[in-house]
């Protein structure tokens, strides 16, 4: 069965997909540092508890991706949070990541927006890579 979104095997698959993507490698050539992505709980969307992923990204390479620990969330340069409904729209390519940030739908709960915004193209490729993954979504995601 395909891994479920925002789980450990899904994170591993995403990391592999990023490392196979020439477009991501080029767009993220100057990206340094880790990123934590938080999916808030929403039982109606099949997410009973929050899910967090830690991505160690360095110059176009994904060095590690796994569920985030509390320490990760406290130490990563950037932490981005959104509801499952918003992540769904991002992963479907229906919500641009920067637009999500600028409208507050994706919340930058840690880090500087000014430091993050130059990495817009990298963020787009990050999302495109995730969208290519064979993914199982909780039942509430089917609309």
């Amino acid at each position: 069965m395909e891994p479920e979104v925002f789980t450990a095997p899904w994170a591993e698959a995403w990391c592999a997909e990023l490392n196979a993507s020439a477009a991501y490698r080029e767009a993220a050539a100057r990206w340094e540092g880790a990123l934590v992505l938080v999916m808030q709980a929403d039982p109606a969307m099949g997410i009973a508890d929050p899910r967090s992923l830690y991505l160690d990204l360095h110059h176009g390479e994904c060095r590690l991706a796994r569920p985030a620990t509390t320490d990760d969330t406290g130490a990563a340069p950037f932490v981005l949070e959104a509801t499952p409904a918003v992540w769904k729209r991002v992963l479907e390519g229906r919500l641009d990541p920067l637009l999500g940030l600028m409208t507050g739908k994706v919340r930058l709960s840690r880090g500087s927006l000014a430091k993050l915004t130059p990495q817009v193209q990298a963020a787009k490729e990050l999302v495109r890579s995730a969208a290519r993954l064979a993914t199982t979504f909780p039942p509430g995601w089917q609309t």
Partner: protein
Amino acid sequence: MPPTPHRAFRSTHRSLATAGFPMRLWNKAKEHGVWDPRAIDFSRDADDWRRLDDGQREVLLHLTTLFQAGEESVTLDLLPLIQVIAEEGRLEEEMYLTSFLWEEAKHVELFRRFLDEVAGGPGDLSRFFSDSYHTIFGEELPTALGRLRHDPSPVAQAEASVTYNMIVEGVLAETGYHAYGEMLKRNGLMPGMQRAVDLLRRDESRHMAYGVYLLSRLVAEHGDPVWEAIEGRLGELLAPAVGIIHEIFARYDEMPFGLELDAFVEFAMGQFGKRSARIERARNQSLAEIEAMGAVEA
């Protein structure tokens, strides 16, 4: 476009919609928008300019150049939108838009006066135009507005307004004028330009209010296809818009006057977020509710 014959005259069989949002903006424009760029006293500004160091002059010239070219672009590119509004018979909106274009023209005059009379007519300033600046002002703005000449559809209007009002005015001009005005005030510099920036920011606040109204009206009238076009267009343009801000700062090892990138980006984000939320609310609003939008600070 062939001329449309007038078979009736709206203003002879009904009153103007004075309580509607466009007429309220029009009234504000007549009250607050009537100022003359030639009346701005730049004499102290010229003295201040001579006392600045090279780095300070360079950044002021840089920002002023981007404002000058931006105001020229919006003056040249706005007409197709006004034409579409006129073709739809929206008399009150067109009345307001006459002040909108007039004000943009005054802004062109204001910045050119500053360049000539304060900065000493500094010659070719094209070194200040970055890649992202060319993308937005050289390509995206004239293309989106020019499209209205052959495609006046609600989606095309929305994409033009997003480009003009939300990105060029909302993210770039408003943020730039805010930072520029605060920088001059904080450093006690150029009282003439400080006064001028206060005046043109009031003009711009009305322009953006009109943009929010127009986009809200289009969303309320035409629903999701327009809303999705707005989101899509914003997604395309936010990156080069924010890129312009980054490219300004990238030219300087240390930014004069204590200008900070974070402050630029945070301000742009805050203003943008409020406006986009306002437009999104229109998905569940009637036209009457859109007309009753709150008066702008102008």
